[in-house]
């Protein structure tokens, strides 16, 4: 059914259906906007769901005052075309984004008023992914069908926005809370239209500021816990029939809230919440039938609108926001639950994941990451082995021409083959350890001058004591060893022996470890994984 209205002298009559299930309630070429009623043929309901969609170059774009004025002219078409309606909720859409939600009731004469919590800017999500599937038309956003009563209720925690974050900062700074610039900021948000009209008329603005000062104090006095709701947008990909869920693109690691335009302030202009465990939200679990129904509800002209909205239950760290000195403040938050919504009104949940279930998600994600890391390591090791295998003969030839010191260093080192590495000499190693003031990594040939585990003296290189911890083998007397470890030198009078603590040790079968100086032995050891 096509509805018609007249915006007194301003809006032209229009009878253009926007989409198959949408009804155009009003349109204006001069204001470059349209008002749609959701619900298709059954759009007329006790509570109307309306959308005012402004074109990019609409003269009313970004001007809530003008938009409100136009909304209040919807009384005529509503009362004439839908006598069953007793309330309406209207969402303003500018450039595909919701910029405000307004409500009106028949009892109040169909006068629209802003719903404050929904009128703040949406959070900006970093690393926001682009949708992998084709999207619906740029505007208006698709209609979501009636609420599903079986779904759990929305989370009760306060939704975090710029002013909720600001309130947490100003809680401990009453002077800044009462600063004129802060009050002007609040007035520009709370009494947007009035402030915008009167901001340059200091006398007329005073009553608005006084009102703002009073109700900002009330706003700050509200009790606030550490658990908040953070709303963010996500894109779901093609349904995964094995995992029985819609996978969701990476949600990033943080959300940020910017100060609304255009008041200069002393308070932070940007709040960032770094989110732990957000990576546990990897999909929207759903039975195939249910998923199909959801997809069909969101299909327009053959394309599924894959944008959904998430309300994250987040526990903020107790320390509060910490400023960086550049106008930005950051806090760490841990995600403890998530509710999926079809649109940014966050009214009709698709699914809620509570704390207990979310803990399982978190554990599953940790297990997935660990498994992925293990597989990656396994893959890398195999690739490395294959590389070594292909280069075996070439490496043996290259090592054959190198001095014994280079060969032995390669045998005991855990790195790749290098013709530039040598065994360490005691004098250079002592100098390096003393100058750096800390133990230095070395690879050394050592002949023990005693037996045991701790501070065993050496015949070679002398003035060195070797210590080995479990599970490395105990040292035997007069035995040659190839040792990799950390060498330190006590800063004491005289000439104290250097201390070498072994991290890896090879017991040599021949003097000076000649048994492991064979290039083929070295290369095959690395090939076997002992690199």
């Amino acid at each position: 059914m096509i509805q018609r209205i007249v915006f007194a002298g301003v809006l032209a009559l229009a009878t253009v259906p926007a989409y198959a299930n949408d009804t155009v309630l009003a349109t204006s070429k001069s204001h470059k906007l349209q008002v749609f009623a959701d619900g298709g043929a059954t759009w007329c309901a006790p509570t109307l769901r309306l959308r005012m969609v402004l074109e990019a170059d609409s003269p009313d774009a970004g001007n809530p005052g003008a938009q409100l004025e136009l909304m209040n002219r919807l009384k005529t078409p509503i009362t004439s075309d839908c006598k069953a309606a007793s309330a309406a909720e209207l969402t303003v859409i500018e450039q595909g984004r919701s910029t405000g939600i307004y409500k009106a009731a028949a009892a109040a004469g169909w006068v629209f008023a802003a719903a404050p919590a929904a009128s703040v800017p949406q959070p900006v999500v970093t690393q926001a992914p682009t949708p992998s599937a084709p999207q619906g038309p740029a505007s208006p956003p698709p209609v979501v069908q009636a609420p599903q009563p079986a779904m759990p209720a929305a989370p009760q925690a306060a939704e975090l926005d710029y002013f909720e974050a600001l309130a947490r900062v100003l809680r401990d700074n009453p002077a800044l809370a009462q600063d004129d610039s802060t009050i002007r900021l609040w007035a520009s948000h709370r009494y947007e239209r009035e402030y915008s009209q009167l901001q340059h008329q200091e006398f007329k603005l005073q009553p608005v500021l006084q009102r703002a000062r009073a109700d900002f104090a009330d706003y700050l006095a509200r009790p606030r816990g550490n658990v908040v709701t953070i709303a963010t947008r996500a894109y779901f990909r093609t349904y995964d029939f094995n995992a029985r869920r819609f996978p969701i693109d990476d949600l990033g690691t943080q959300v940020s809230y910017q100060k609304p335009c255009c008041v200069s302030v002393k308070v932070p202009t940007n709040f960032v919440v770094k989110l732990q465990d957000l990576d546990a939200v990897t999909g929207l679990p759903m039975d195939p039938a249910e998923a199909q129904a959801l997809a069909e509800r969101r299909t327009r002209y053959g394309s599924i609108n894959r944008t959904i909205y998430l309300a994250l239950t987040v526990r903020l760290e107790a320390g509060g926001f910490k400023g960086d000195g550049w106008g930005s403040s950051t806090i760490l938050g841990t995600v403890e639950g998530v509710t999926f919504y079809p649109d940014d009104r966050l009214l009709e949940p698709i699914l809620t994941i509570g704390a207990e279930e979310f803990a399982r998600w978190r554990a599953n994600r940790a297990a997935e990451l660990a498994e992925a890391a293990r597989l990656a390591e396994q893959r890398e090791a195999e690739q490395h082995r294959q590389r070594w295998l292909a280069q075996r003969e070439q490496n043996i030839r290259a090592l054959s021409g190198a001095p014994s010191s280079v060969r032995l260093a390669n045998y005991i080192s855990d790195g790749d083959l290098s013709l530039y590495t040598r065994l360490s000499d005691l004098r250079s190693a002592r100098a390096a350890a003393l100058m750096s003031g800390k133990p230095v990594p070395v690879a050394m040939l050592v002949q023990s001058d005693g037996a045991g585990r701790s501070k065993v003296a050496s015949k070679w290189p002398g003035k060195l004591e070797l210590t080995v911890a479990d599970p490395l083998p105990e040292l035997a007397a007069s035995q040659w060893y190839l040792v990799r470890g950390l060498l330190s030198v006590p800063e004491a009078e005289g000439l104290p022996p250097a201390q070498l603590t072994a991290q890896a040790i090879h017991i040599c079968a021949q003097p000076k470890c000649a048994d492991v100086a064979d290039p083929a032995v070295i290369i095959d050891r690395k090939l076997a994984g002992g690199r």
Partner: protein
Amino acid sequence: MAAQKNKALITAGVALIVIGAGWMFAKHQATAIAKDRIDGFLIRNNLTAQVSYQDLSASPFGSATLSGVKLASSSGSAVSIGSLEISDVEMKGDQLRAVRISAEKAEVPLLAMARQQRNPDKVLREAIGLGYTSLTGSVDASLRYDEQKAAIAFETSGDIRDLGTWRAKLRVTNLDAATINTLYAQSNNAAQLGGLALLGVMGQAGEALTRLSLAEADVAIDNSGLFKRANEITDHDMPSEGAAEVASAFDERELVRAGMAPSEAAITRNTVDNWLRKGGSLRVASNLGQPLPLFRGGNIFAPSFDSLPGFLVATKSRISN
């Protein structure tokens, strides 16, 4: 008799007290004068930030001893000297003609110096690797110009703990007072005017310098401590198969070509090579009947020796362990 004896004792006692008091007064005065001179020298040369001392005492005979001396470098590390004695000072006008400086309990903090450098040089790394985190010992140096004999003598000796000792004496003749005056006058200008002025000094004194003759050179070094350390802390990453090859300091044929008898040349080379290989003491002492002109025919481009073998032969030096 007893009264006379008592009178003599009292007289002697009074004389002793007067002499003691006079000595104390003279010492106090000498200390005050020395402090003024040293502090004035440090201030005039902008050295107060780099040089400091805890105490100073001077004797009426011209020596001054500074204790607790610190020589700070720009990087912050400080050389400390327990006791620095300046003695045997002789002046002629404002010209220094003789001085002796002895430093006892001197300490050079090598490790602290290295830690303040981004890339410590090789010698410093080597010393620290050998365990010389600081060098401690004593150093003595003296300089004396004898105007009558137109000769200048420089002597030095030192003993660095766990490293070695040295003793050296160098005496040069044919350095007349006029040349000294020129060097003094022009070096003061050079210090103020910089490098080009220094070249001017060399030019003005150049002719006189070509007449210089070496009367005596005697150098003795004992590096036993250094070799002991080197043996204890090897710089080899693997045990060597045999004795390490050490390059000869020179070819004995060069000594023969320079005029030394072949048998003596072989002994000289063996002595030096042995010292290079094993360390220990080595003394090189000239044996000149007459002073040896440093430049033949007063020509600055014709030095009497231009190599170690040439020096050994020209100065008829004896080398011994």
